[in-house]
């Protein structure tokens, strides 16, 4: 697919070939236009009708797909397995949740200007960090700003001291765990165990109305499309080349005169920002944000969405998050006890049997069909003595 000199091409041609653009546009049309129409314009009796529940469920999946895009940028392209993406998702979600809480107004259980949980805790007034979130603009800005600033601080310290690989994964997991405990505290002023919930309106629209939820769904679809294009742009640029080089041999990058710290920090912050946006879109659609989103297990799951779809392919990240979450919804409904077995098996199975994910499946089937030699590994494996022996033999 690589043209001889991509830099001479116009930007849009550098991202995709015209055929690919047509596919992207078709899929985007399907998700952003057709699905809402199937809900609103098609009568419920028709087999093509999508129920309100299905559309909001889809909307939730779309926000997961946005989150997965960031994860793929981080892990698939740069080789940083962060087990803390749930943190940034939740931070974005909490920012939006605070805005939504402040606009419940007098409709809450206690008919008080304060959020219900504060009335319950006998707090006389809003803590200092709450009032700015009355503004939708501020809340949206914070939903991106808080995660990115947090990621910048943490990432700076982590990457500067060359914490990487497994170490970075563990540290990010510990961070997630610590923040989960922190958000469970009532004293933090973010609803403690119950989190923020029971929202009524967003920007003046009732959240009970299907039209509002459809609007949020369409917004998620558009954001997913834009994030995809942005990520595609990053990965196809020279920056993207450096990121892949860091993934495949960080020391060689360093020896070539690049400092990986800035690149890694950039991609970590970008992924955090994307996760924050995803969280902000997730909360009004699902109607609740609580510390369970910060459970380390939730963050690790994001990695498996990407792995299932196919690392290092943005399409794979989107596909994987839709497939795994679809499977989860279906299984937890049908066979409640089986989900953890299946999820565990998916973790093991993908890593062992399908390391390049579902995206590689057609190619592999084709290769198997033609009885070709085994595919080339995506990662350059560390060359071991044993392997060298094999090769020389």
């Amino acid at each position, binding site marked *: 697919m690589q043209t001889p000199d991509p830099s001479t091409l116009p930007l849009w041609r550098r991202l995709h070939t015209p055929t690919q653009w047509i596919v992207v546009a078709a899929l985007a049309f399907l998700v952003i236009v057709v699905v809402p129409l199937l809900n609103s314009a098609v009568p419920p009796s028709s087999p093509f009708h999508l129920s309100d529940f299905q559309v909001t469920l889809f909307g939730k999946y779309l926000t997961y797909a946005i989150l997965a895009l960031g994860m793929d940028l981080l892990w698939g392209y740069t080789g940083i397995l962060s087990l803390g993406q749930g943190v940034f998702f939740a931070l974005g979600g909490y920012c939006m949740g605070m805005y939504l809480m402040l606009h419940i107004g007098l409709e809450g259980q206690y008919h008080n200007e304060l959020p219900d949980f504060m009335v319950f805790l006998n707090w006389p007034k809003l803590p200092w960090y709450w009032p700015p979130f009355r503004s939708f603009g501020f809340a949206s800005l914070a939903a991106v700003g808080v995660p990115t600033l947090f990621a910048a601080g943490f990432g700076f310290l982590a990457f500067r001291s060359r914490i990487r690989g497994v170490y970075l994964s563990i540290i990010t997991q510990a961070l997630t765990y610590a923040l989960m405990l922190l958000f469970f505290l009532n004293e933090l002023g973010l609803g403690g165990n119950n989190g923020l919930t029971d929202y009524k309106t967003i920007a003046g629209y009732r959240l009970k109305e299907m039209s509002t939820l459809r609007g949020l769904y369409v917004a998620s679809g558009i954001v997913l499309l834009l994030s995809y294009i942005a990520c595609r742009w990053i990965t196809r640029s020279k920056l993207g080349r450096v990121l892949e080089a860091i993934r495949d041999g960080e020391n060689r990058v360093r020896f070539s005169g690049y400092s990986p710290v800035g690149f890694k920090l950039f991609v970590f912050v970008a992924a955090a920002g994307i996760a924050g946006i995803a969280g902000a879109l997730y909360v009004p659609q699902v109607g609740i944000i609580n510390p369970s989103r910060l459970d380390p297990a939730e963050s690790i799951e994001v990695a498996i969405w990407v792995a299932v779809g196919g690392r290092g392919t943005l399409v794979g990240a989107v596909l994987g998050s839709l497939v795994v979450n679809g499977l989860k919804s279906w299984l937890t409904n049908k066979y409640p006890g089986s989900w953890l077995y299946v999820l565990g098996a998916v973790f093991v199975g993908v890593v062992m049997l399908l390391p390049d994910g579902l995206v590689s499946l057609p190619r592999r089937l084709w290769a198997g069909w033609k009885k070709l030699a085994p595919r080339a590994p995506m990662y350059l494996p560390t060359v071991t*003595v044993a392997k060298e022996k094999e090769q020389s033999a």
Partner: protein
Amino acid sequence: MRHVAQCLVALWSLAQTPPAADEFAKAVTELASRDRKVQEAAIETLGRLRDSRALAPLTALRQGTLFLRGDVLVIVPTEKEKKVFLKDGTELAPLTEALSGKPIAGPDGRPAMIDVSSLKRVVATNALKQKIVPVLSSLSLASPDPDARKSAAGRMGEDRAPESIPLLQAAMAQERDRWVRQAMDEAIQMIRLGDASASVRKEAARRLGEISGSNAVPQMKQMLSTEKDPAVMDALKAALKDIESHESLTQTVSTSFEVLSLSSVLMMIALGLAITFGVMGVINMAHGEMLMIGAYAAYSVQNLFQAVLPGHYDWYFVVAIPVSFLAAASMGMLIERTLLQRLYGRPLESMLATWGISLMLQQLVRSIYGAANVDIKSPSYLSGGLQVMSGLTLSYNRIFIFGFSFCCLLGIYLLLYRSSIGLRIRAVVQNRSMSACLGVATGRVDALTFAIGAGVAGMAGCALSQLGTVGPGLGQTYIVDAFMVVVLGGVGKLLGTVVAAFGIGGVNKILESMIGSALPKWGPILSKVAVLVLLILLLQKKPSGLFAIKGRHADA
């Protein structure tokens, strides 16, 4: 052990008193007399005989659970769960003979369930019941169980009856256990605090301060507002201050002991993790589940002993330790041979795969044992504790765990540094390719280290089962801390893991109490956050942990 010896001595001395046996039996039988005078005399006799076997019938008489079955005095248990209630209102209960303390057996040799309405209750008037109370206390003072003696002394101190003083003094003179003697002393002084003479009160306060009698604190504080005599007042204040400083000392000691035992568990968990990480570069996310497997193995062994060998219940723990090692080690070996071996050189993928394993193992345990936590009963030699100061008892459980973890550490040290397999393990840690060239079977070393690491975690789980309940989430509670220990301690040196485990455990607790005193509810959580922040800051200076092996590695 000292308690056991004392019990034996006490039982032996009981067996040495045959002449009083007839008198004792007569007095117990006379408890059932219809004549109040005879009953009173019998109670007095029993009090004089100081035979602790009289405790059961006297307590029963006071509670109204002493019955006559024909001529035989029997006791009906107070616990409802021991009885059976039939639909027609009949109450069936297993009986014990009041005189011998033995259960009454049915024709099949097992305890018989007897209709309570066929028995005749022995009646005691309220005045008579009042007479029983001091006798019971003084009998408890002679009980073979030191804890019973101690609590009897405590009760007498609370009651503040001056006539208890001679009883207590007599018991004290014979008492061999230092801590029981102290409890008796405390009771005496507490009674004396209410004495009419100011000098006696002053002396009592002084003595209470000396022996740190914390039970007397409420009484002394109350006296601060009523006491007239300035000298007594001063003595009271001084004593309260002494007791307070003693209490803060015991508090510190007991907290640090708790930290030590918890950190030693953390050390055992992290040891296995660090070894496997050192050898294979793989973090085993299912390591916490090895802990869980060990704990559930101990639970299964316990159940097996309860079912098959109830008489040798105490031995279950001795069996459970190797069983939990083997269970976890074979699971570890299985994971390594089937999965990790094929993922060699892909640490991040290995991590995800082991996470998948951990999810499945948790669910598996939920399906086998249920989602609820299960309880494991400590064997008798591990229950109770060793009193080292007044008001400070170190439980045998925790002492055992502390010692056990160091035995494990020693074992691992010997294995790594004094055996040929250890030599090979260390070689692989330093340079895998070179070791392979020199003929070390690296695959076998991987499998073995993984099994050992998992097995040590299994034993840690078995030890942990003595500290609390065991549930499917057991591994998850410790694993994040264990990961941090590995990151902090670095790879390849045992000392790093040991220092990091005790460092993280200790700093966590210190920060918890420091933050906790300023912001009460934030303590436990902010200390965790603070430990993480400290760890990240520390890694700025020492990126590969405290005790990394020095060498010219480009890729760690």
